[in-house]
Each structure stands twice: as C-alpha cells, then as structure tokens.
C-alpha cells in the first residue's frame, strides 16, 4: 500500500465524523421539510375545501346579483378578518344560481358588480365580465371563477376554501355549468 492511500487513524475518524453529521442532518431534514411543505401536502389531500352555506335561497332576489360572505373553513388563531371571504351570488330564477369568486381571473383583484350596465368590473387592470361571468373585455383570459354550489334545506351552499387563482388545479373552479346535486 502506497503512502498516499494510507488512511490515518485521525483521518478515518474525521471522515466518520463527517459521515455521522451527514446522517444526523438527513434525519433532521425529514421533519424540517415536512414542516415547511405542510401547507402544500394539506392542500393535496383536499382537506382545505368544504361545503359552506351562504344564506337562505329567498334572501337572494331572482334576476339579481348580490354580495354574500362566508367564513373560510380552514382557520388559524391569528387569521383575524382575513378568513371572511366575499362572493357574488347570482340568482337566475327559481333554484338556478351562479356563485362567482370576487377575485378577478386576471390577477385576483376584487371585481364589483354594476347592475345598471350589467357588468362585473375590476378596479386594477380594467377587466370586465358579463352577468353570467363570461369574459367581456380587458386583460383576463377567461371568465370569473365559479364555486360549485347546491341547494340543501333551502340554503344555498358552495364548495370553497382555497384562494381562486388562474393556475389553480382546483378542478372545482373551472367555468363549468353549475352541477345540481
């Protein structure tokens, strides 16, 4: 064995020491990464979404669009008012409803309903939508986000819990016709 390849006692211990630290670091990385990723893993399991009542059906006049609020199902003690969320409820007629997120499909600013001109307008970048949520003009690439809804015991109930964003994979936020269930 040549001199260069000879492993000294101290050299071996140093390498073992580094290896030992590496093992401990890997073991510690598991809880750290799981802690950091908890907000993602929880979302993947779908536990953010629930069915939330917005009010009695007859609180919403036919042919009109009204602002309703609901409390986000996932609450932390320091959330304050941020868990209260608004949405636009359009009662077409009878039990036919559409419930839109207030967040503009462009960049999430709160859209406002103008009954006189029959448009939702966004104050940020000038997006506009028709009364059925379809895109009318401006930078949005699509119509307003729509919450899935159902009517139970005379209550209009929506499935919500996540911030609607243009790229969200929450299939529920697509521009699909309301599903009656």
């Amino acid at each position, binding site marked *: 064995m040549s001199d260069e390849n000879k492993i000294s006692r101290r050299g071996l211990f140093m390498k073992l020491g580094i290896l030992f630290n590496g093992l401990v670091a890997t073991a510690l990385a598991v809880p750290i990464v799981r802690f950091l990723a908890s907000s993602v893993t929880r979302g993947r399991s779908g536990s953010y979404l629930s069915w939330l009542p917005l009010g009695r059906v007859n609180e919403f006049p036919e042919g009109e669009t009204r602002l309703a609020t609901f409390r986000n199902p996932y609450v932390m003690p320091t959330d304050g008012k941020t868990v209260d969320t608004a949405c636009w409820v359009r009662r077409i007629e009878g039990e036919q409803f559409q419930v839109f997120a207030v967040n503009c499909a462009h960049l999430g600013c*709160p859209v406002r309903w103008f009954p006189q001109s029959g448009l939702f307008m966004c104050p*940020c970048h000038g997006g506009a939508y028709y009364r059925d949520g379809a895109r*009318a003009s401006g930078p949005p690439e699509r119509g307003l986000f729509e919450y899935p809804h159902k009517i139970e015991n005379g209550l209009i109930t929506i499935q919500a819990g996540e911030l609607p964003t243009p790229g969200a994979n929450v299939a529920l936020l697509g521009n699909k016709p309301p599903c009656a269930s």
Partner: protein
Amino acid sequence: MRLLAQIGEWFDRRLQLATPIREVAEHPVPRNTASWWYVFGSAALTVFLLQLATGILLALIYVPSASEAWSSLQALNHDVTLGWFIRAMHGWGSNFMVAIVLIHMVQVFLFGAHKFPRELTWILGVFLLLMTLGMAFSGQVLRFDQDAYWGLGIGASIASRVPIAGPTIVNLMLGGPIIAGATLSRFFALHVFVIPGMLIGFVALHLLMVVKLGINEWPMPGRLVRRASYINEYHVLTKKAGAPFVPYAIWKDLFFAAFVLLAVAACALYFGPFGPTGQPDPTIIQTVPKPDYFFLWLYALLSLLPPSLETPSLLIGPVLVIVGLLLLPFLSGEGEKSWRRRPIAVLTVLLIAITLGTFTHLAGYTPWSPHMNAWSGDPVPEQFLQRRSALERQGALVFQVKQCRNCHSLGNLGGQRGPALDSVAVRQTQDQLIRQVIQGGGNMPAYGKNLTPAETTALVAFLETLHPRGQIPARDASRDIALDEDQAQRQKAQR
C-alpha cells in the same frame, strides 16, 4: 488620553484588529476616484444600516399577526411617541434604498466597473438588487392593509401561472389555502430574518471584494481593459499615483451619507408614514389596490400586455432579465470602460429608464381602469343637453344610467378605458354606433343583452349629437342613395 490609549491597546492585543482595519482604511485608491460619482455605494450601505435600525425599532411595537398587525400600525401612527416618524423613516428609507441601489448600478455599468476583474462584485450586486426589491415587496406586505392583502393576491395569481408547480408555489407562498395569518407570518420571517441575513452576508462579500480588487478607476476613453495587463495598470494607478482612501476620498462619502439621511428624515417629516390604508378585510371590496412606487411600472405593464403575451412575459421575462444581468460581465468583460465610447450602453440605460418612467407615470392615473364611481359622480355636462330633442335627451339618460362614463369621458369627465366620446359622431356613422353598442368589440363589452331596442335607439340618437360645432356627423353615403331609391320607389307606387 493615556488611559484611553492603554484600554485600546488592551483590547487590540486580544482582538488584533487594528492593523487590518488601518490597512483597509488607508488602502490606496486611484486619485480620480475621489469623485462625487463614487458615493452611491456607500450611500446604499448607509440607508441599509438606517433600515436595520428603524426596522428593529418598529419590531418593538409591531405585531406580525393578521388579526393585530393593522391595529399595531395604527398604534404606531397615533399612540406611540414618534412612532409615526420611525414608520415614515423606514418607509422613505425603503424608497431611497431602491433608488440609490438603482443609481449605483447605473453608475457602475456606465463606468464599466463590471468588467474584469470585478465580475463577481457585479454578480453579487445583482443579487443585492433582487434582495432589495424582495425587501421592498415583503415590507409592503407587513404594512398589512388592503393594498397588502390584494397585492398578495396578485402575487399568488402570478405564481399560480407557473406550469405544473403553480398551485404548490401558491400554497407555499401563502402558507395555506388563502391569504391569512400564516401568510403574514412567513413574510415577516422573510422580511426580518431571511432576506436581511442574506443581505448582510452579501454586502460583506461585496465590500470585501471592493477592498481586495480596488475601486474601479475613473474610465478614460481609449484606455481599454485587457485581462493580461489590467492588474499591472491598476497597480500603477494606485501604488504609484494613488492616495489613501482615508482621508483622501472618504470625506465625500461621509458628506453624501449625512445628506441622504437628512433627505430621508426630511421626507419622513414632511410627507409622513405610508398608510396603512383600509383594514385587510376581504369582504370590503370597495378598494382600488395599488402597489408601492417601485412596482407601479409592473402594475402598468400587466394592464397593457395583450392577454396572450402576459403569462409568458411574466414567467420568462424576469428570468431573461436576471440571466442577462448575471451574464453581462462575461459578455463584455474587456475593452472600453468609458461611457463616452459605449453608445449602446448609454442608449440601453436611457431606453430602460424612459420605459420604466413612462409605465410608472401611466400607473399614476391608470387610464385602463374604469372609473368605478362615474355613475354616482358627475352628471352629463349641460352643453350636451341643450337644444336636443326628447329622444336625444332620453339617450343621454341611458348614457348616464348604463354607466357608459365608467369607461368613456364626456367633457373631460369619466374613465379613459375607451375613447372620449365628445366627437364620436364624426368618427362613426349611425349604423356603426348601433353595431358597436350592441356587439361591443375592440375591448368594449357587448351591451345588446343589456339595452332594450328603444334604449339603443335613444342612446345612438344622443351619440349622434356628439360632434364639434361646424363639423357634420359621419354618414354612410351609400345609405342615402339606398334610402333615396327606396323613397323613389315608394313615390312611384303611390302614383
């Protein structure tokens, strides 16, 4: 004095820092770098230290909790002695820091200081710029008001557009499914621990390299940088013809640092703190969120990009800009340093400055946004109603009630989203007006479903009166002929 000297000696025997500090202070610099153009780096450092100090002071009162942040800011503004002033210093300090860092960067670029051997100093500087912008954005979030809340929404909407990983990034960024307590807490951690820690480390390395490699000499037109000879040439400039940094050059840095601090304090005193605006309550939707000054250009850009270009620009643009800045010292690491002989460099800086300036200016009055209160606001000006028929006045009423002025101005009142309508009758014939109102197009929503035929007729009759005195409204000549023939035939039939 002797006692002081003895105490100093006692410490230095243990710390052994006096010699290296003296060496750094007295390191020779080229004589012509003792210029007022070379003060921006030290000014940026000064403002950074000010931000550290005022930031720590604010943290004594501020509560990073979504339920209490807003009220703790109100307490700072109104209850705590001089709390408003410390907030104002921190807010204005942030604006000054971004501005000075940008000026420093432009000066460094125009003086060719990014060239050999200072490439890494430039690269660290690019990261320092990004961190400064990161501090500016996260700081705006900590001012947890309506702007901060909806600003986070915009951030999340942009992040969500990343292919595949978008929703994951949004959940990571928000710390949960929505903008709430966890979001504020993680931006607090970023703003107070993570980014400042990185900033301190990067600033230290940046300064170390300035000392080790020497400050960039004043660029002389025609004196080219060559990798083979530059170190020797610089050595001649410093060792043979240089002067010690302290006190030969430092006095200008000191004066400018004091001046900048005074300017921040003056702005803080005169203009006061920024916000907070309304409470971060997502059920209050009567709000017009706007970013802070240094992101206004982005706000304008997001309104003006065509929808199809937006996502690619948002996701690819920043990468290209950052990679371009990082590669710059390798693409032009040698050659001419003086801006007098680098016209493309000067034009690039001017082009970027004018572009950002124009976008920022546009964002100041947001011509793309509808005026949300036009209907409840001003009535149709009187001059447009005088000597009008009943139908035309009915049209003016439709015009007002259907909120056309959210987007169109009349008599200089109203939105600028669509064209001003003062002389629309000159531009469009009756048929074109009807088509535009009913079908929309060119960024105008279609109003067909929203207007009865009678309302449309009245509205168009009113629009047809909108032309300057002495100019006849546009008309379709073929239509006249068609009508004439029609009338002639009718007359024939009558006979």
